[in-house]
């Protein structure tokens, strides 16, 4: 019988045994789903994904700490994300004394009682020669009539360049802006609070509390007007020429950020958690399988050598396992990870840290399997049929591969399955202990939630936790099912 058909035979036998159990069925179904998602995610994963996860500018269009969109069904008020491409709008033009002023009046309707999460204006335009400088200013006229003057502004010197690349989102001196818009309330306004939660004051209705001693803010629905003023100082340029340039800009937009985002919400850096979780599938599986394969391979090899050849090498391997077993793993992991975190400065630090963590994990996790494989090898080695094989002249290699290994294969499979979630869990556990490598794993997402989030941001904490639990559960269930397949063989 050929090797292929033999492997196929034992596989179909194992599959039949697994499928005869409920836990086995569940595990296989989960496994197929996991592997399916992982393969798909790995195929569509941008090549630089792991490098850009931590880059803030990639995520700046998203609201931060936003719950998922479907949270509206849970009672969250989801103000939609509103985007205006200003290149298509016609501004009011005015020209006077070497200045050209373009004024855009953009209407924004806030319909839900919630504060939008931010305002972002992006400009990326080439202006003709002769524009000396430019100033961009944004006023907001609120439904209650208050005008927030110069909420944002920026000045660009164009003597040496003709490129304007701007992102306006900072609200400088917002406290002063609010104060001057609500003079009558000025003495009751909490300046600190304005600086911490500017959006509340920009999109809120300010009124006295009942005891007239403080100001209460409630969301203010209605029609907001964003007045965006582009003020150019020019030399010999026609207004409509300049307008054409502006209309042909690479980007000129206004974004009023909503309060909910995507399928899974965002974190403190506005990162799309759905992406992190999705691409976390292949990463988790790769990490788990890599560590499991490596430690299983080492354990099996060491156990076979130890049990089959005996003598000095056996003693050496067994004592090594004993020593390893008596060293506590967690402190070593923390030590190694911390020392790399402190000393290594390369850009690939996250990967290096992760690799070091797993190297330690592999080095410390093969011992148990080695002991089991050794004792199985010892008992198989003394079987009469092994002696018979020696009598016909079979080499040690042949005896190991034909008589010993096939019997421990089911056990190896079970061990592989059991040790797969170990790496995933350890990585997550270390993250929770505060060892952050920054590589976009589920554990890392959890770690950031621990550091920057709070329990209110359930969408940030629960999904990665659940996914880690589900993946572990899958392998543990599979291991349980396999164990029942392996166990009678072990007893034999």
């Amino acid at each position: 019988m050929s090797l292929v058909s033999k492997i196929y035979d034992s596989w179909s036998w194992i599959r039949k045994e697994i499928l005869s159990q409920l836990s086995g069925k569940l595990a296989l179904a989960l496994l197929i789903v996991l592997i399916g998602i992982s393969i798909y995610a790995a195929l569509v994963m941008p090549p630089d994904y792991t490098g850009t996860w931590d880059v803030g500018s990639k995520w700046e269009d998203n609201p931060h700490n936003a719950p998922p969109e479907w949270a509206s069904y849970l009672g969250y008020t989801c103000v939609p994300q509103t985007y205006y491409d200003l290149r298509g709008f016609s501004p009011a033009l005015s020209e006077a004394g070497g200045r050209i002023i373009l004024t855009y009046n953009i209407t924004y309707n806030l319909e839900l009682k919630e504060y939008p999460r931010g305002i972002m204006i992006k400009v990326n335009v080439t202006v003709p020669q002769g524009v000396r400088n430019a100033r961009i200013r944004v006023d907001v006229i609120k439904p209650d009539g208050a005008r927030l003057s110069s909420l944002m502004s920026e000045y660009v010197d164009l003597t040496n360049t003709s490129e304007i690349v701007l992102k306006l989102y900072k609200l400088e001196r917002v406290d002063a802006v609010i104060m001057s818009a609500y003079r009558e309330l000025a003495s009751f306004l909490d300046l600190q609070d304005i600086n911490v939660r500017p959006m509340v004051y920009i999109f809120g209705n300010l009124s006295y509390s009942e005891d007239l001693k403080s100001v209460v803010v409630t969301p203010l629905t209605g029609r907001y007007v964003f007045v965006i003023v582009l003020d150019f100082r020019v030399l010999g340029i026609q207004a409509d020429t300049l307008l054409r340039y502006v209309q042909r800009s690479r980007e000129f937009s206004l974004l009023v950020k909503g309060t909910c985002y995507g399928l899974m919400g965002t974190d403190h850096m506005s990162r799309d958690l759905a992406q992190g979780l999705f691409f976390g599938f292949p990463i988790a599986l790769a990490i788990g399988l890599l560590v499991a394969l490596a430690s299983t391979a080492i354990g099996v090899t060491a156990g076979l050598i130890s049990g089959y050849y005996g003598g000095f090498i056996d003693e050496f391997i067994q004592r090594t396992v004993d020593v390893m077993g008596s060293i506590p793993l967690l402190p070593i992991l923390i030590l190694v990870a911390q020392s790399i975190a402190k000393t290594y400065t390369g850009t690939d630090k996250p990967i290096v840290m992760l690799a070091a963590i797993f190297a330690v994990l592999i080095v410390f996790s093969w011992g148990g399997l080695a002991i089991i494989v050794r004792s199985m090898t010892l008992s198989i080695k003394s079987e009469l049929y092994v002696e018979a094989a020696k009598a016909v002249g079979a080499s040690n290699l042949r005896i190991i591969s034909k008589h010993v290994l096939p019997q421990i294969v089911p056990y190896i499979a079970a061990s592989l399955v059991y040790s797969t979630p170990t790496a995933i869990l350890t990585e997550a556990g270390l993250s929770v202990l505060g060892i952050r490598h920054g590589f976009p794993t589920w554990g890392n997402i959890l770690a950031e939630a621990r550091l920057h989030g709070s329990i209110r941001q359930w969408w940030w904490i629960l999904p990665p936790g659940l996914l880690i639990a589900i993946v572990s559960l899958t392998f543990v269930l599979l291991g349980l099912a396999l164990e029942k397949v392996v166990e009678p063989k072990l007893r034999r």
Partner: protein
Amino acid sequence: MSEIKLKVTNLKKYFPIRRSVIDVLSGVPPRYVRAVDGISFDVIEGEIFCLVGESGCGKTTTGRLIARLIEATSGYSLYKVSRNIKDLIPREVFIKEDYLNLFGKLPNAVDKSLRLDIQIIFQDPYGSLNPRMTIGSILEEPLIVHSIGSTKEERQEIIFRALSEVKLNPPEEFVNRYPHMISGGQRQRVAIARAMILNPSLVVADEPVSMLDVSIRAEILQLMLDLKKLRNLSYVFITHDLAVANYICGRIAVMYLGKIVETGPTDMVINNPKHPYTIALVSAVPEPDPSNRLRIREVPIKGEIPSAAAIPKGCRLHPRCPYAMDICKTKEPPMVEVEPQHQTACWLYAKM
């Protein structure tokens, strides 16, 4: 007169007893199980030479030493290699003519060639066949190891022939079965086929029928006799059953605690036993007549066989021997001839 196939001289096998760390540190000397403790015998070409004795007397160990499955502690032998493998062995390995020493260190290539020439059949056909391999692949293993048959078909052909030789017909019905799918007798036939497939000239048979149902023992023994005639084999046949020995052995050696106590042609040893131990053994043989079997017969030997780790001084039998004398407790008896070809080691026959 046939030539000698195998001459064994003073063969010993001591198994070390595992010592604890405390033993090692406190300088307790290493102890040994003296499983085979200096035995000598000849196997004539074409004969069936039998080793008999109680359980634990070292029969299997002797067989494994001859089949080169374990290394001898000491001992010397002259083994006449068959014509089949003579050309595979370099001249300098031979001691004289076609003879070489089985118990010395031999080059790997010679070791492998000798595996073609000396085979072993084990006692337990349930343990000697790998339960995960088909009969076909069990029989194919020796062929693959020795590169016999260049194609799968050629090897299949050889396997079919081997199976029909041991009367497992039709062979194609057996090749794809697993050991658990055939009976004990059929398993032992497969084990015999495996031993024969390499065309050996000396076969060690370690109690090949003792684990089989009584009803099929005769068939298997007959098969072994037929194969011997067909291929001009020599057997070293191990048994604790004197009835079997009487049936097939040419010459016989009785072992007790790692020593041969009596040896000679089978009918002489069994019909005219000299050594007190042999006498005891012979009288322990069940009578064919059922009415006699139930009679309590006088067995002139008392107590249990001592452990091979604590062998008594002097004659090993003396604690159990009804004839024990003073000298038996201190000096080992030498081997003496009691009639032509018939020798025994007992102070009753030796001159002091």
